[in-house]
């Protein structure tokens, strides 16, 4: 991501405060994610007019309104597609995509998989609360089997998706998991995700205090174990990362599962962009080139 960060050296947390305060429920995990993103941008000193925050629809997707960067609040599930187009048209921008588990793994699942295999250079943060919040509490693609919600009152019978394993299989080049209750750790992962050149996927446990009474802060706290504390963990080992991604229960790993830096980014792989961002280029086809196009038809 850090291909052309413009370090202004004067960005503060106040500069990143949005025009309105978040309307999330008090105690919502998303507050922690917002704070961590703002801290990461300040620590990286990326001028906020060069950052675009793009979201889909849902509680967490209100994110762009709460941070003072360029923002797009798009359609349910479509943020990654919009972000891909924007990044390809101006790859000098730092792009952060935010959304929830329903937005990203449900309705947006197709774009999620394809954006990862394309290695689009952006950071995708999923505020994963294992529930649909804004529609008042239905089962999500990450809800556990047996979880009772308004849409599955007798308990969920469908196995949840494992976002980390899915990301590994789809070819994401930076894969991490954070916890909204671990601010410093989360901020560090966001910084790494922004600086990584390629698709950075960050799944964040962001508890819903209103509709998910199973996966609460209290439930997560004793379970999360930082991969960074495990001296044997090697984030360049894909198979080990896949094994770690399957751990769930009394011990749930958070931190950087996997990173590889040898895959070209989508914009880096396309020679059309060699001369710089498209948005800064003359839109006209040179007339001699145009003439050659017409001659092909004669």
């Amino acid at each position, binding site marked *: 991501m850090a291909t052309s960060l413009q370090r202004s050296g004067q960005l503060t947390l106040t500069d990143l405060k949005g025009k309105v305060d978040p309307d999330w429920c008090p105690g919502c995990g998303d507050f922690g994610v917002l704070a961590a993103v703002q801290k990461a941008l300040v620590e990286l000193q990326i001028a906020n007019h060069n950052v675009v*925050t793009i979201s889909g629809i849902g509680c967490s997707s209100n994110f762009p309104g709460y941070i003072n960067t360029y923002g797009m609040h798009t359609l349910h599930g479509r943020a990654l597609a919009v972000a891909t*187009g*924007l990044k390809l*048209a101006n790859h000098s921008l730092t792009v952060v995509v935010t959304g929830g588990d329903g937005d990203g793994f449900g309705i947006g699942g197709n774009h999620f998989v394809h954006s990862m295999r394309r290695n689009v250079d952006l950071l995708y943060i999923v505020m994963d609360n294992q529930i649909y919040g804004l529609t008042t509490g239905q089962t999500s693609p990450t809800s556990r089997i047996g979880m009772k919600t308004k849409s599955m009152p007798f308990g969920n019978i469908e196995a949840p998706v494992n976002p980390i394993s899915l990301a590994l299989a789809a070819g994401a080049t930076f894969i991490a998991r954070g916890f909204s209750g671990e601010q410093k750790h989360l901020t560090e992962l966001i910084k790494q995700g922004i600086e990584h050149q390629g698709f950075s996927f960050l799944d964040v446990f962001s508890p819903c205090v209103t509709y998910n009474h199973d996966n609460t802060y209290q439930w997560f706290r004793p379970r999360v174990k930082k991969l960074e504390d495990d001296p044997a963990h090697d984030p360049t080992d894909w198979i080990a990362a896949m094994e770690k991604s399957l751990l769930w229960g009394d011990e749930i790993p958070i931190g950087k599962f996997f990173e590889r830096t040898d895959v070209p980014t989508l914009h880096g792989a396309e020679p059309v962009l060699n001369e710089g961002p498209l*948005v800064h280029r003359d839109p006209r086809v040179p007339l001699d*080139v145009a003439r050659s196009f*017409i001659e092909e038809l004669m």
Partner: protein
Amino acid sequence: MKQTFAIGIGGAAGQGVATPGDIFAKIFSRRGLHLNAYNAYQSIIRGGHTFLTIRTGPDKVTNMGDRIDLLIPLNQDSMDRHLRLLTAGAACVYNAETIKPGSAATGVHLCPLPVSKLADIARNKIAQNTLAIGAGLDMMGIGFPALEDVLQEQFKKKGEAVVTENVGVARAGYDYAAVNFTAFPNPLPKTENRYAILSGNTAMAMGGAAAGVKFYCAYPMSPSTGVLHWMAAHARKAGIMVRQVEDEIGVINMTIGAAQAGVRAMCATSGGGFALMSEGLGMSAMIETPVVVVNCQRAGPSTGVPTKTEQGDLWQMLGAAFGDYPRVIAAPLDIGDCFKLLPEIFNIVDRFQCPGLVLCDLLLSEGRLSVDPKDLDFNQPIDRGEMITTANGAPTGLGANGAYKRYRITESGISPRAIPGVPGHIHTVATDEHDEDGVLISDEFTNPIKRRAMMEKRMRKVAGIEAAIPPPALRGPRNADVTLIGWGSTGGVIEEACEILSDQGISANQLQIRWLVPLHGEAILDLLRDVRHTIIVENNYSGQFARYLRSETSYVPNGHIRKYDGEPFMPHHIVEAVKEQLAGKTKLSVPMHEIMV
């Protein structure tokens, strides 16, 4: 009547129908002749029945016409389907060893080729095709060198031996015809003009490039895929980012993302893909980020008939995405217009920051037309509208935050648009209803006054768009016996039907609609005030344009001509229908397509 000559080549997919077609097209275009080609085919890679019609002549050829002068059936099936439709003066050149002719009308010349006597068919699998081209060319009175040159180009990649072989086979066909077959009267003339031959898909792709498109993406879907193919092949030379995307939902959203970054962005699809794009169009309108979407219609509903044409998506386009929003819809009138329309619609959507829809169809998308290269002008005016970029005077420091309002309420409804990366203009665009600042009003405190103000701001743009678009005009004599009303791709065939009717003593004029939204209803009513008898001609079942015109103007025509069998109109379909309607026999004609393709 204008002089035209039409060749029909029929065979199974994979049997090499396209190659003779390309060869004839090149020969005609190098003689300075105009050309119109239409290929009737099926959704199959090998087999089925493909029938290519190439019609040429010294004047512009607007459609495939009514008559085949030279039929080249490459298999028995093609002979059986098409020989019976030939009329006096036509000829049929065929392989006498594998194909049996059926009964033909009086005056049709049967021209059997003894293929194995003229060529080594064990070595040359396409000998019958090449012999037929040679024979046909002699009968048309065109000198052999024209064919030799084209065969040189066609086969030069395969080496000198293959070139010599094919030139020899063609020569054998040419010489055999000279001795054994009757030549056509009125040989085709030669002119000094030179034309480009292109499909509507190529024309729209080039038109997009001429408009300054820097981002194009698509999911393959017939009959729109040709746009993707041209874009992909020319992307690096033209400096266009071209992507193939996972689905059409991704396509429209990527296109909008690129447009939001500040470049001109477009995409093309057919009806099914367009259906998936609907929600995205609403986003384009709501966040006021302009994009152009091309819909190359095919016969629906659902998967429908993927390789057949129809004008059945008008109401889908009119109603695409929920809610009210300003949109522009235009239907190109012919393949040359496919090029011309793109820069025009881009200028309009950039000025008015709304989605623009191009309603094309298979007939134009995959048809071929000769176009004067001067009409493929890349030096087009580019008007990006009120856009704030670092290049055009925006502040370079961090200051001015807070003063800029992305959705400032203005009289025109247009709010100057800053693109990401411009200092001092940070804002969020939102699909939720928002205030002038871009702050959502939908979630915490909805506000009826602000909602009304924003709806009115966006919808005020409609008046500006209307003023920017020219009203339609009547073509042909005033006080005509009949006025034919059409839209989009039927422009050429209706034009020829009017000429034929006039020749037969029925004066006819034409109102062809190019800009569908906004429609200029008042101007249309003015034009139709004094006309005698109006008939709406369209390639669909329910009269989609007739219903739309009625909804906008309350205008009801005297009659309708509709066709929904997957094939385009031929001039005689319209001529005969007009006559039966003027005789008071019916108000709704549905011509039968006589050719089984």
